[in-house]
């Protein structure tokens, strides 16, 4: 094998583009492995993990090219593939010459002005996102701030600056929005209808939209506000504006607020504010003792006098049905729940639902500080990981686009004897991976086979968030996953309960009805 490593300065590309470039280079003849990435800490770790030694002094805005090939010819073909892929990335604007088009706008403010835009979408790396958002606010347009890793002080300042101009900052870390039928970021294809959604949670909003879609109900707008909006620091600044806007919107009949666990006082203030709007407002705000998202949507349907459907699910199609939990022949199995999520809110909900039965669950987004996982994200315990968390997306595409890190962990759980049941989410819709089913199905099949060769049976449950209109084909994706041996559920809460039921080997000392936020077990 021949290794090639080079660092290129002054060549910035976004992480999604580089992921595609990496794949094209890795696929070149004679190339065994390749990683082309901006030199963020996380990416340098990945490259170091591949066995490359990265020179000191590399800056985060440098491009690192790591190619492992059979021989020098392989390296050469990898580099050729690299140049081709990079050349294809260069935008038409920068190629324009002669008397043709003007160069492409280089700042968001100019892009707003040139295109007469009324809405801006920012997905640049977090440390630069505040500047772009200010630029849009200065131009008087609302912003969807998809970027994460934005300091909370910046969030507060941005939201105050926007409110002063009567425009909305959706985010930061706002994954999902639907404005007047247009899906922004990660969003499912839903009919236009009477339900307005305010979401301090991207995947939570997607789960709500998927359930509403299954119940035959459309959405007027889904206004994301960012996962921290209902925290004590941000104080529901954007939620308030979004509620007022939906209250004044003729196409909206009723409003659902979806949120990760909110600060109690903020929630109470918002409830009081919502009470004066003259439109029904329902709360799908996660927390201990509060309904899960599915239950909240069910309560919403009942309040409108609409029937609650049976939420779609797809049983596992496998000769050894995971619903028949333990293979008597093997007898041995792991004792712990392992939840590997792309959606932060789905992970929160799973921890709340499972925690009510299992007690505290270790996580990188723990419900209580003492449950935090170490940097290696491993523990011989019940573990739920959010691969979409800020700490795992710095300089990398979101796992809904680039599933690499999570797929690696799925494989690792297959050969980890402590893993008793694997709970995964998969979110479809605009912005997500164009066809994530087959890859995840392969990983599930691989993990189950690895477990089996290790003398244990590994049941897998998938929470599949999607709608009938989504480009990835919900039914086909579900079929692929169930064919790989997973039990698939549209409702994340239902998926979590199914996973718990498969953890039936649970010894009495691990069962607990204590507070899912932690406490003694």
């Amino acid at each position, binding site marked *: 094998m021949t290794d090639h490593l080079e660092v290129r300065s002054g060549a910035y590309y976004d992480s999604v583009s580089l992921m595609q470039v990496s794949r094209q280079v890795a696929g070149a003849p004679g190339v065994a492995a390749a990683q082309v990435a901006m030199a963020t800490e996380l990416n340098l770790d990945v490259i170091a993990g591949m066995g490359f030694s990265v020179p000191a002094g590399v800056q985060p805005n440098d491009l690192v090219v790591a190619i492992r090939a059979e021989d020098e010819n392989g390296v050469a073909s990898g580099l050729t593939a690299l140049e081709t892929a990079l050349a294809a990335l260069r935008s038409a604007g920068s190629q324009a010459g002669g008397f043709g088009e003007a160069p492409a706008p280089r700042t968001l403010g100019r892009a707003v002005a040139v295109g007469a835009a009324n809405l801006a979408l920012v997905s640049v790396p977090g440390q630069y996102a505040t500047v772009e958002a200010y630029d849009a606010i200065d131009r008087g347009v609302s912003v969807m701030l998809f970027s994460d890793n934005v300091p909370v002080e910046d969030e507060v300042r941005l939201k105050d*600056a926007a409110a002063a101009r009567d425009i909305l900052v959706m985010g930061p870390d706002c994954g999902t929005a639907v404005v007047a039928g247009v899906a922004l970021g990660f969003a499912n294809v839903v009919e236009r209808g009477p339900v307005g959604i305010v979401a301090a949670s991207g995947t939570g909003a997607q789960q709500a939209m998927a359930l509403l879609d299954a119940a035959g109900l459309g959405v007027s707008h889904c206004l994301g506000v960012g996962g921290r909006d209902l925290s004590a620091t941000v104080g529901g600044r954007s939620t308030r504006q979004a509620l007022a806007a939906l209250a004044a919107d003729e196409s909206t009949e009723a409003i659902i607020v979806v949120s990760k666990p909110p600060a109690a006082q903020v929630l109470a203030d918002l409830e009081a504010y919502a009470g004066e709007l003259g439109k029904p407002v329902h709360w799908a705000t996660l927390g201990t003792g509060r309904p899960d998202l599915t239950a909240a949507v069910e309560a919403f349907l009942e309040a409108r006098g609409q029937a609650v459907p049976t939420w779609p699910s797809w049983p596992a199609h496998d000769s050894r049905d995971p619903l028949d939990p333990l293979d008597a022949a093997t007898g041995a199995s792991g004792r712990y729940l392992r939840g590997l999520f792309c959606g932060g809110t789905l992970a929160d909900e799973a921890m709340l639902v499972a925690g009510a039965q299992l007690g505290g669950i270790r996580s990188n987004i723990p419900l209580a500080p003492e449950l935090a996982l170490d940097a290696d994200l491993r523990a011989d315990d019940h573990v739920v990981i959010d691969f979409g968390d800020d700490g795992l997306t710095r300089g990398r595409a979101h796992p809904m686009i680039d599933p690499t890190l999570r797929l690696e962990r799925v494989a690792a759980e297959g050969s980890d004897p402590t893993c008793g049941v694997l709970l995964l989410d998969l979110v479809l819709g605009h912005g997500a991976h164009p066809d994530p089913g087959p890859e995840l199905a392969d990983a599930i099949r691989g993990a189950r086979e690895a477990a089996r060769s290790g003398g244990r049976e590994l049941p897998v449950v998938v929470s599949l968030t999607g709608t009938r209109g989504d480009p990835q084909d919900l039914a086909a994706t579900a079929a692929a996953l169930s064919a790989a041996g997973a039990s698939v559920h549209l409702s994340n809460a239902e998926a979590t309960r199914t996973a718990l039921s498969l953890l039936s080997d649970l010894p009495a000392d691990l069962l607990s009805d204590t507070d899912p936020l932690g406490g003694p077990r």
Partner: protein
Amino acid sequence: MTSPLHGLLAADPVLATAGASMFADALRDQAVVVTETDWQPPLDGTAAHLTAVLGDARRADANAVALQRMTAAGADFVDVRPASEALGLERGTFLHAGPPIEWDRASGPLRGALIGAMLFEGMADTPEAAEAALSRGDVELEPCHHRDAVGPMAGVISPSMWVYELRDEVHDHTSWCSLNEGLGKVLRYGAYGPEVIDRLHWMNSVLGPLLQQAIRAAGPIDVKSIIAQMLQMGDEGHNRNRAGSLMLLRELLPSLIVAEASSADIAEAVRFSGANEHFFLNLGMPACKLSTLAAEGIAGSTVVTTMARNGTDFGIRTAGTGAQWFTGPANTPEGLFLGSYGPDDANPDIGDSAITETAGIGGFAMAAAPAIVRFVGGDVPLALRATRTMYEITVGEHTAYQVPILEFRGTPTGIDVSAVVRTGILPQINTGMAGRVAGTGQVGAGLVTPPAECFTQAIAALAAAAGTP
């Protein structure tokens, strides 16, 4: 009741995006109109400063005021006088181009011009004596900009030299610039041979007084209007001033002809001025200085009010940070060389003439002057691209200065430090090249940009002035 969020929920979304192009693609798939930003990370180490500056609530309005003042500023040519009178320039003080500098760090062409000024003022008999006196610090050196004056290339103005005087009646400002000496071996390029000194004496004794008579009889002349016209006639006002020079001469000629002087002197003055393509440059520069002067002292504004070089350092100043200079080592221009001169002969960038770009012409109006590309070694698309790219780093467009080939769009005006730092696009400057060795004169002409550190320093100071780190 007006609908909240400026009617966002009632209208069809029209998007502008910055970041992953995948999201723009997903929007296009939904038949949404999207304008994508060709986004790049800002210059290294500026992210926090940018956040503070962009978050400064004064910025947008302050920059709008700066642009308004820059474009509203008038520029009337009103007089020609000795610098001692006009600028109050006392014997023993010389002005020079660019940010402050001392003899020890002065470049060849600046040294040459200072030596020439010593000889011209009779403060030394030989170049060696002049150099000795200068190195002893016998002469006080001060930037032209500190007295609201501007000087091309070395920009040396000594008390006896005559200067043009221009007025901005709108903002009550005055600006000055030396008289242009023509091309070749001239003081501003650092030459100081006998022919240079002789010409300076002739300019003082014949040309200056004649021009003074002419302008006092014919004036004031609206220089701003000449700039607007010359842009439509193929000049950009920095490296190309043919149309401007002839238009100016047209204005002056009737009163020159009837001036009280010998017909031989008048003929020589007219010949000298008419033969000099850059005759107008020394009026365009103070006109531009009046435009940028109008933008000085606007708290919260990130607009550049000065770009100037002394042959060693490039310096800028901004509207929001007052008189403070932000400097970095001057780059060496790239372009074409005269005769057998080559890149090794060229001195780093020098002169106050980048005031033209600062005010929105020169390199910023290159699309108006496609012929310029022959002189600076580029092609016509380069000229168009240069101007169009400058819109990305300017606050707005000039209301009077227009570019016909861009549908009479106003020239990009008001360089925004934050936009420069965000995009990494540096201002495009058209310039002459002086010989590295004192006494050489001009060796070529070309294109140059300021060093990025001028702007990274300025953004840090603007961030501090914004109140948050």
